[in-house]
């Protein structure tokens, strides 16, 4: 991205006031970027912003509470930041947001489906909507639009929820877009038995690694997660599907009205379980019931932490 030089300059300027700035750097191979925790000018030089920078860095913010933190954030990432601020899990004064216009993102699962074993990729380069991937055997030119993760296809963000500094390339377009939620639509076309079988099948594969939880920016309990304790004893260590299912329901319900649909849970899942679908469904219901979208308004009260004596959208059953 052309704005990267400008971004680095601004971070260099601000670094003396900050304890750390979180961004991305090149990872262990050509297709992976990894989070960068920058405390020195040298580390700033390693900063990259490209469609391989897929991590929502807001995840690290609650753990850094009490420190002065700078964060490089795409538009959708700022929604998570907004929600964290709304819940007082981080402090605005401690935070400096370097908002970057999102260059798009690559879903590595989709990339693998296109080019095969990712370990064989020698280089990957981006030119607008074109992605060029070099392997020892061939060079392929792919459409970035085809590689976008699901989360970039259901909600479009033109502007950040909040920003201290904003970086946009001239005539840079918004990559994400608002289309039908195909996963949810597909699920809703099934009958009840098929849906039950769908989840039973998917959730049976869960290995209870809790990566989905650990990567979630809103899962602030972390060490105190009720999945890891006997007091209260919500879950046992048994490996049957009910325990796994229950864990996902706990996770989903704890995120109800809070989940910012960043999709990190699904991205981190080593078993490719479509768990974001449950959260999207809850968000959709919450929007319908309470007209509320999480993270978009720092001053709003989350819908499950408040009420109306007369709920306009809830029609209770007559007996």
């Amino acid at each position, binding site marked *: 991205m052309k704005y990267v030089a400008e971004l680095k300059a601004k971070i260099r300027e601000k670094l003396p006031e900050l304890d750390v700035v979180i961004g991305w750097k090149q990872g262990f191979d050509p297709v992976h970027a990894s989070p960068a925790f920058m405390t020195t000018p040298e580390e700033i030089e390693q900063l990259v912003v490209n469609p391989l920078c897929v991590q929502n860095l807001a995840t690290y913010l609650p753990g850094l509470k009490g420190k002065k933190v700078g964060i490089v954030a795409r538009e959708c990432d700022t929604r998570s930041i907004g929600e964290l601020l709304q819940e007082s899990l981080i402090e605005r004064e401690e935070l400096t947001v370097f908002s970057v216009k999102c260059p798009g993102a690559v879903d590595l699962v989709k990339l693998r489906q296109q080019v095969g074993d990712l370990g064989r990729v020698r280089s990957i380069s981006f030119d607008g909507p074109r992605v060029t991937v070099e392997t020892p055997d061939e060079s392929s030119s792919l459409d970035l639009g085809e590689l976008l993760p699901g989360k970039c296809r259901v909600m479009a963000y033109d502007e950040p929820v909040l920003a201290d500094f904003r970086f946009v390339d001239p005539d840079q377009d918004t990559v994400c877009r608002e289309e039908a939620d195909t996963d949810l639509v597909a*699920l*809703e076309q099934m009958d*009840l*038995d*098929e*849906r*039950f*079988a*769908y*989840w*039973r099948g998917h959730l049976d594969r869960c290995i209870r690694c809790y990566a989905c939880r650990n990567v979630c920016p809103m899962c602030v309990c972390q060490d105190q997660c009720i999945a890891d304790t006997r007091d209260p004893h*919500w879950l046992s260590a048994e490996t*049957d*599907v*009910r325990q796994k*299912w*229950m864990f996902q*329901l*706990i996770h*989903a*319900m704890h995120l*109800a009205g809070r989940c910012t649909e960043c999709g990190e849970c699904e991205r981190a899942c080593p078993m490719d379980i479509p768990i974001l*679908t*449950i959260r999207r*469904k*809850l968000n959709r*219901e*919450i929007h319908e*019931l*309470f007209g509320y979208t999480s993270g978009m308004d720092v001053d709003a009260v989350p*819908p*499950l932490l408040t*009420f*109306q*004596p*007369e*709920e306009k959208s*809830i029609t*209770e*059953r007559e*007996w």
Partner: protein
Amino acid sequence: MSAGNGRELRIVGFLCNWCSYGGADTAGVSRLGQPTDLRIIRLPCTGRMDPLFMFKALLSGADGVLVSGCHPRDCHYSEGNFYARRRLELAKRLLPTLGFDSGRFEYTWVSASEGKRWQQVVTAFTEQIHTLGPGPKFSH
């Protein structure tokens, strides 16, 4: 007075102490006959009703779950049922996505004086669960 002939299904009820548990008592004192499938867990308030208890019961093999509390505005703790209504409505709406009929879970309000209403609720809900039949099976 059993809803549906044949074997009982497992219905778990969560009732607030002040209104609905009292309403169920009133129904008992008035000898208002009811199907026997329901087992009641007493909570201080529907505000104590974590919707996850409902999911836990359904995942543990319950065929139906019923929550009942004070009518809105009559909560012994002023606001508990207001919060509960939002949480429970949301949880109910999630059920079909997971493959559970949303009719397996109902929440309602019954006051301590409404023994007759409690009888109606239990009877209607039990019939509803028998119409739906046993809950989905987890073994393949």
